[in-house]
């Protein structure tokens, strides 16, 4: 079941558009947030009913976008390190390796305590302050080892 909050957000999203289908991205985002970072089939089925879409259409829309994590739970903190050109020039590989060592996981994995998931991503539009990463909603820029340590320590 979608949470009441998610349902309210979907109601609000529906007011923006002349058709229901347009609210599918907002609906999926709300559902993913409510579940703590990923989507399951039940969420998409329920969204399909609310938006009067076929379940496969909702699934196809969700599968198209990289930020929807279908059936892939992520840790409490989803760490996404940019690996594109500007960040790479400024040492992104070094940051990624350091992160793997510190968390003792490989890129794409989640720590045993489900606290951290480590991913690499393409350019996040923060290239002048490279290297950078995003943790959940927040950008962290001008990274070096010391700064990474400090940020990780600050995460409960």
């Amino acid at each position, binding site marked *: 079941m979608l949470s009441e909050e998610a349902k309210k957000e979907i109601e609000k999203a529906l007011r923006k558009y002349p058709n229901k289908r347009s609210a599918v991205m907002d609906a999926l985002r709300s559902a993913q947030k409510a579940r703590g970072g990923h989507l399951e089939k039940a969420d998409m089925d329920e969204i399909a009913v609310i938006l009067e879409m076929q379940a496969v259409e909702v699934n196809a829309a969700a599968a198209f976008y990289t930020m929807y994590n279908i059936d892939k739970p992520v840790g409490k903190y989803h760490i996404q390190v940019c690996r594109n050109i500007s960040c790479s020039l400024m040492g992104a590989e070094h940051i990624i390796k350091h992160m793997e060592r510190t968390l003792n996981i490989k890129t794409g994995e989640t720590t045993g305590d489900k606290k951290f998931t480590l991913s690499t991503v*393409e350019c996040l*539009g923060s290239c*002048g302050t490279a290297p950078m990463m995003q943790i959940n909603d*927040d950008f962290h820029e001008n990274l070096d080892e010391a700064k990474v340590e400090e940020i990780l320590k600050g995460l409960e």
Partner: protein
Amino acid sequence: MEKVILKNLGKPDSHKLENYVASGGYKAIQSALKMRPDNIVQMVKDSGLRGRGGAGFSTGLKWSFIPKDPTIQKYLCCNADEGEPGTYKDRGIMDNDPHILLEGMMITSYAIGASVGYIYIRGEFVFGAKRLEAAIDEAYAKGYLGKNIFGSNFSLDIYIHRGYGAYICGEETALLESIEGLRAQPRKKPPFPALAGLYGKPTVINNVETLACIPAIIEKGPEWFSKMGPEKSPGPKIFCVSGHVKKPGLYELPMGTTVRDLIYNHCGGMLTDKPLKAVIPGGVSAPLLTARELDTALDFDSLAAKGSMLGSGAVVVMDESACMVKSAYIINRFFSHESCGKCTPCRDGTPWLTRVLKRIEHGEGRPGDIELLESLCTNIFGRTFCPLGDGAVMALRGHLKNFREEFQFHIDHKRCMAS
């Protein structure tokens, strides 16, 4: 130079409506509402403004294609998907001065007769989306949005549509598909969005920076804009500088500023004493320039004449420590990752390029791999449904043309020449 688009960056609480108004904001829309819409379109045409999203199409001309019939619903879509690697100017505007974008959208909507505007912002820009949302709320509360804005007969609603991770949504017709709740694959053109765009209605799609130029054109006049920089590619432009320079950042400068001036005068020169090796002048789709080409002017036509492009204005600077094979690999990997899968040359061709580049980069390249890359490029270029596939080829060809010996060295010696 007096800044126009980034004039409020760095001021305290620059995102708040009261501060925007105190800096002279929301005057241009009030002047515009007293003009005839077609006069505004003409002003923007006369200014010579060309789209800042990458293609450089005349903004006024684009607006003039919208049918005049007042009974037809029309839409304005602001392209804030900002996905071209190296680019972060639209984020700079939205995070720090969301009202300049809203004012630009108000004037544009009035000029083309749109009563609804959508801002398509990429999903990762959570901070920017919140800033925009707060700014929109402030504007409604003041009567600057909604029914009869500023007491005029004109009504306008603006909504935010958040993307969720797909570079192709920056392509204007894919963006429309995405707002309509579909998989974001580009549409066939024609029909062009000006006639049949969002929900089949006439639609203008403009980049954030393009729209942020509009208030100043109304206020200072088209002459002021057209006299800045080259005649055919005028106006102020934001350059997003990244990579090996002392002071990377956003620089608002006249179009036609040279690469040398930008790097050595504005950005404080190279990061270390290693010399400059290559510059990508307009986002990763743009073929790179070498150290011999630093006097190239950064504007649409000068870069096109060099076989490159201004694109989004993202200037990525690399010194001698940068490996060109690695750069080509990273950039190509990006394109194959972002291919939407609609057409075969791009869907199958770009991952193939990536596999070959990856093995060369990892010291497993084979004799004939460079020729293989070239023939794959030939098979992709000009045969794709949208410009993404061509962008992948142009970027790679730029690397191969200027640094072929580095690729050969990687293949022959199983290691890198640069580091």
